[in-house]
């Protein structure tokens, strides 16, 4: 049986087909914005590869896993449903107040994107719950009914409810939701105590509003895709990639579309971990350098890094999301000289149109790709038979960078590469060393077409000696999707001192959340024995406003468990922030449960190892300038398609793959391993 992963990008949609034996088949087709036609195109290519009919493929296909972009695109294009918000009277502006914070201190011209619910659609209700859950003022149902009338008249499509302290007591929110449901059954409702029961009304409210505003478009998409697949004759299951790095069913995401937001890069770390574990490594840096941006995550001891409380497209989201840092560093990043005379690279990119200067009808600005071409690191032709114009790349770099700065052409080209590499290294350091983690001697895994040309420099600067370069790096996220597990997150606010925590209540709460996880994953057709539960707890020292998450030891919670949790927290705090505080009490902020449902672990095909002599795969040579060379030297060029498992190439060399170019500088060795992945060793 097969599993199919599909990842939609701006230009291309990637297909990865995997069977239980671990055999992989790939397809890359043009994206079809606004329709599901890409399915036909992709299946056609796969069937052609396998030499079977579409019907045969569909019969053997038991699951399609799909990274949808509809939820992110809906936000970017501001095509959300007509969304309203009911709040506690006197507090209807937190959504637009945005905590009173803005970036860029001396820039008074910067603006946020428009608020999703304008003020006249934010409707107050007299009611009040206090921080401890006590109801201070009962809900005024006349207010709710008046608001419903307003919504009815205006033809509202969605409604979020966020009352103060509803995480501590959801009674009023539920009451209001019931009334809306009765009166306006067609309106999509999201209530904050269901979507994300945490304290902090801005984070909870903003997440809930986004969720409500996305329901219509996401449920429509799920329905359309399901229909299209059924029409094709597909009878298996469909799963979607979530921003938390796991999979969810269409039914779940139609109700909780917020979990589909920004799920694009979420699968990179999972895929990186998959490859690293083939080499018995569980701590890795996964880097994905594409045309416009560089995505990086640090996976430690097998755990995918998570983040919450971030702005996505300018809107605050507080559900847990895979922590992927994105920088404006890609092959298309533009090199420029700023008003102080400083050479900079990015964040602006030449994008797909017009593209780097060396592209046919390319742009007028020098890019990273132009610099690489100039140095002889890239072939003169790219995938799709596109010719790259090296002469033009040289002219532009000379004119825009080298001459103004008084550098030679090659100094300028090398400088562009050094700066973009340094930007990426800084990004990598910020998420590792900057957080107190050791990155030396870990492993770097590459994804994205541009990374293998820069991997050596990035790894070397970070003290990393091994780089894993999967052949399928260009479709890494789609691959991540087919090896991922189902995942659900649950959270319950609990603001109390750790020393005064009610152990009985905690046990009951954890059990409740766990049962919820079992029930929800069962709906996604995961058997109980395939479900793994992880309990978490968020803690901080008294007075802090930022909490850290630690895992709770399994089993019944007792007084000793609390002591163990305290110690885990001290340790984590010291690791993150260089000190532990033995005087201040620890406070609990929330309890959490993560449910993982194992879907299918593919076995891995291992190629047989041949001898190390790669000379048969050499297809020629070209002049290349590596750092430290005074002038260009002839460097052997290998055809990646001809390399066999066990082949070893000593740098300096270039290996050309169909979708990427691997640069093997002097002082490094590249080996094709039995897992269809290269291993770059740095001495």
């Amino acid at each position, binding site marked *: 049986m097969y599993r199919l992963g599909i990842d939609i990008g701006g230009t291309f949609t990637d297909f990865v087909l995997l069977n239980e034996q671990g055999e992989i088949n790939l397809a890359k087709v043009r994206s079809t914005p606004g329709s599901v036609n890409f399915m036909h195109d992709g299946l056609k290519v796969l069937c052609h590869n396998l030499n079977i009919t579409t019907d045969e493929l569909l019969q053997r296909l038991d699951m399609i896993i799909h990274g949808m972009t509809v939820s992110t695109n809906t936000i970017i294009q501001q095509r959300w449903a007509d969304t309203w918000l009911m709040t506690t009277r006197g507090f209807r502006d937190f959504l637009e107040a945005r905590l009173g914070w*803005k970036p860029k201190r001396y820039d*008074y011209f910067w603006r946020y994107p428009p608020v999703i619910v304008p003020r006249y659609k934010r409707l107050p209700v007299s009611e009040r719950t206090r*921080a401890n859950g006590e109801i201070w003022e009962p809900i005024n149902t006349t207010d709710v009914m008046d608001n419903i009338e307003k919504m009815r008249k205006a033809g509202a499509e969605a409604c979020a409810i966020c009352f103060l302290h509803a995480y501590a007591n959801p009674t009023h929110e539920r009451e209001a939701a019931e009334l809306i449901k009765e009166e306006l059954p067609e309106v999509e409702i999201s209530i904050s105590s269901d979507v994300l029961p945490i304290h902090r009304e801005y984070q909870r409210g903003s997440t809930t509003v986004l969720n409500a505003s996305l329901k219509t478009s996401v449920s429509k998409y799920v329905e359309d895709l399901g229909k299209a697949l059924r029409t094709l004759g597909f009878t298996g299951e469909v799963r979607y990639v979530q921003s938390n790095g796991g999979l969810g069913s269409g039914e779940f995401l139609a109700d909780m579309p917020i979990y589909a937001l920004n799920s694009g890069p979420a699968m990179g770390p999972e895929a990186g971990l998959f490859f690293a574990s083939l080499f018995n490594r569980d701590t890795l840096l996964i880097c994905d350098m594409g045309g416009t941006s560089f995505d990086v995550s640090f996976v430690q001891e097998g755990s995918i890094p998570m983040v919450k409380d971030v702005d996505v497209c300018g809107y605050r989201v507080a559900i847990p999301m895979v922590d992927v840092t994105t920088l404006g560093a890609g092959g298309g990043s533009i090199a420029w000289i700023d008003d102080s005379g400083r050479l900079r690279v990015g964040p602006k990119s030449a994008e797909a149109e017009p593209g780097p200067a060396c592209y046919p009808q390319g742009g007028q600005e020098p890019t990273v790709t132009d610099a690489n071409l100039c140095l002889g690191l890239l072939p003169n032709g790219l995938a799709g038979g596109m010719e790259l114009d090296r002469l033009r790349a040289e002219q532009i770099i000379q004119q825009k960078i080298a001459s103004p*700065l008084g550098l030679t052409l090659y100094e300028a080209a090398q400088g562009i590469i050094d700066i973009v590499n*340094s930007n990426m290294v800084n990004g990598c350091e*910020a998420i590792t060393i900057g957080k107190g983690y050791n990155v030396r001697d870990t492993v770097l895994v590459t994804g994205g077409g541009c990374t293998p040309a820069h991997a050596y420099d990035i790894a070397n600067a970070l003290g990393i000696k091994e780089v894993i370069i999967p052949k399928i790096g260009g479709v890494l996220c789609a691959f991540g999707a087919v090896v991922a597990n189902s995942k659900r997150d649950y959270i319950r606010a609990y603001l109390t001192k750790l020393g005064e925590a009610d152990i009985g209540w905690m046990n009951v709460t954890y059990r409740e959340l766990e049962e919820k996880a079992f029930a929800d994953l069962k709906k996604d057709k995961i058997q109980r024995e395939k479900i793994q539960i992880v309990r978490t707890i968020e803690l901080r020292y008294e007075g*802090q406003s930022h909490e850290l998450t630690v895992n709770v030891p399994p089993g019944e919670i007792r007084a000793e468990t609390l002591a163990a949790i305290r110690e885990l927290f001290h340790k984590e705090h010291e690791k993150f922030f260089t000190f532990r505080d033995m005087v201040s009490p620890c406070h609990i902020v929330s309890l959490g449960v993560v449910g993982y449902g194992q879907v299918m672990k593919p076995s891995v095909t291992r190629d047989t190892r041949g001898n190390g002599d790669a000379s048969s795969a050499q297809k020629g040579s070209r002049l290349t300038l590596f750092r430290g060379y005074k002038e260009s030297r002839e460097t052997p060029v290998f055809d990646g398609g001809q390399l066999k498992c066990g082949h070893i190439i000593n740098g300096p060399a270039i290996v050309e793959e169909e979708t990427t170019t691997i640069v093997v500088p002097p002082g490094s060795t590249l080996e094709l391993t039995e897992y269809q992945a290269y291993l770059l060793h740095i001495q």
Partner: protein
Amino acid sequence: MNSNIKHRVDPVTLSIVLGYLETLTKQMTLVMTSTARSGIFKFAHDYSDVIFDGQCRCLVQGEDDQPIHLGTMATAAEIISQHFGNDIYEGDIIYHNDPATGGAHLQDMMAIAPVFIDNELMFWVANKAHQIDTGGMLAGGYQSLAEEIYQEGIRIPPVKIFEKGRERKDIIDLVMANIRYPLEQRGDLAAQLGACGVAITGLRNLVKKYGKQTIKDCIEDMMDMGERRIRGVITNWPDGVYHGVDYLESIRGSGDLELKVKVTIEGDAMTVEWDTPPVLPAFVNSYPGNTLASVYHQVLVSARLEPPFNAGCYRPIRVNFGPPGTIANAILPAACSNATTTPAQNFLNAMRRALSQVLPKENLNACWGESAGFTSSSVNPSTNKRYTWLHIDAAVSGMGAVWGADGMPWMHTEVGAGAISTPQVEEVENDYPMLITRSEFRADSGGSGKWRGGLGGSYMVEYPNHKQVTIAVMGQGNKFAPCGVLGATNRLLEPKLVRRYVLRDGKKTMLGTGERVILDEGDRFVCEVSGGGGMGNPFERDVDEVRMDVQNEFVSVEGALKDYGVVIEPVTLRVNTEATAKLRKKSSV
């Protein structure tokens, strides 16, 4: 054009070193954000990180830090380094808050550490953070009753709290013994030291990688680059002498006072000269570091430059603070605990009025509202412990309009320029035993103009089961609305002024600037803040924009009529086009 620029270091290394330094300040900020302890500090991001070179020249500053800190940190760092001379060693950390030696007000406490490399002083790293208490007459640091600095709390001149790596516990204890909430403040100090530690490690790695000389050359190049950028802007501003003024509202019978500034632009440099009245026996005096910070702030905003900013950017700006003992050049024993907002914001406004005469339209920006708040202190009825809360959650004003866009609503003081986050109702109520009953935009508070000022906040709070609560207000704006630019005028004035009052049995008792009051059980306290100033003639504002503002209750029907000359039917909210045209025409004649 660029071919004339000669660098000491090759441009690639320079760019990489600079990028690394910027990353380091980001890491310092991360440590602070995540570990800070006390309220204002943790919610409000009221802290800043700077890396100086060995001569105390600012190399990089945190991108999201407080402008008002950045100016004073430079002044203080220089004084501190002179103070110790050669008596400074690896492992030393100095603590400081004294306005007389470069500080702004006692609440801002700075930890600064030298970074030695092979026995040579190469850098200083510093973190400045607003602390919740300084001792003194009132909890919270804002000493509205003080007449001189000795009543405002503990002054910390340059003093080592770590000496050659060893903690001087006695000194730290001395500081903490003079502060009401030592536990919180010890935590905050640890966060500050953590931030400095991250930077020290990073700087060592940097020098190890590139060598001392290269780094020194990079520093000189960076200074030149900063200088060149700002000169490149100033040179486009017409030469001349420009006057600006702003008004300090009467405090304790002082009468309203003029704070005057003269800005002289000559080629690519400028001179800023202050002319302010003698210091007052109140907390609104500005020591030179604080005044300097305001000048730098307004120049950088007006120049519309992208970061990074370093000491080179300050080179073409000469500042004369006026005679010692005047408000802009305070000397001991002048009180100053409110100085970072009042008169700092007045200084920004005076500078703005002067520069408005020279700036191109695209660089113009209107005044931000007065971020006027208050502190409440009492005993928590359930724990019997004393507490003080500085209501930054109430002190939200609005940003001034800029050329081409309305100001953003709900911003704190301009001196923080968007760095200060509002603590949320659910956070405050989990930490403090009060009940907030309103926290929303205040209608009509945005200054009217073709582009409207951002709205300020309207806030109401009560203190269930409390016996007594002491409220002390700070900030101004009771009399003067935030000024507009390019013909922006306010006709509906009342909602553009700061109003703070006690509500008792439906009756309002207003509080004036710097006053305090004691609440009884059942009293409620209201704080209504002004928004930002507008830009351009409000009668030229797009009619549909005004209609939408009314629909959103940013502007009332009355406000639409008076401020914007737009006639709107109160029930249907339809625009009466004819009446509007007539009204607008009449006013333009």
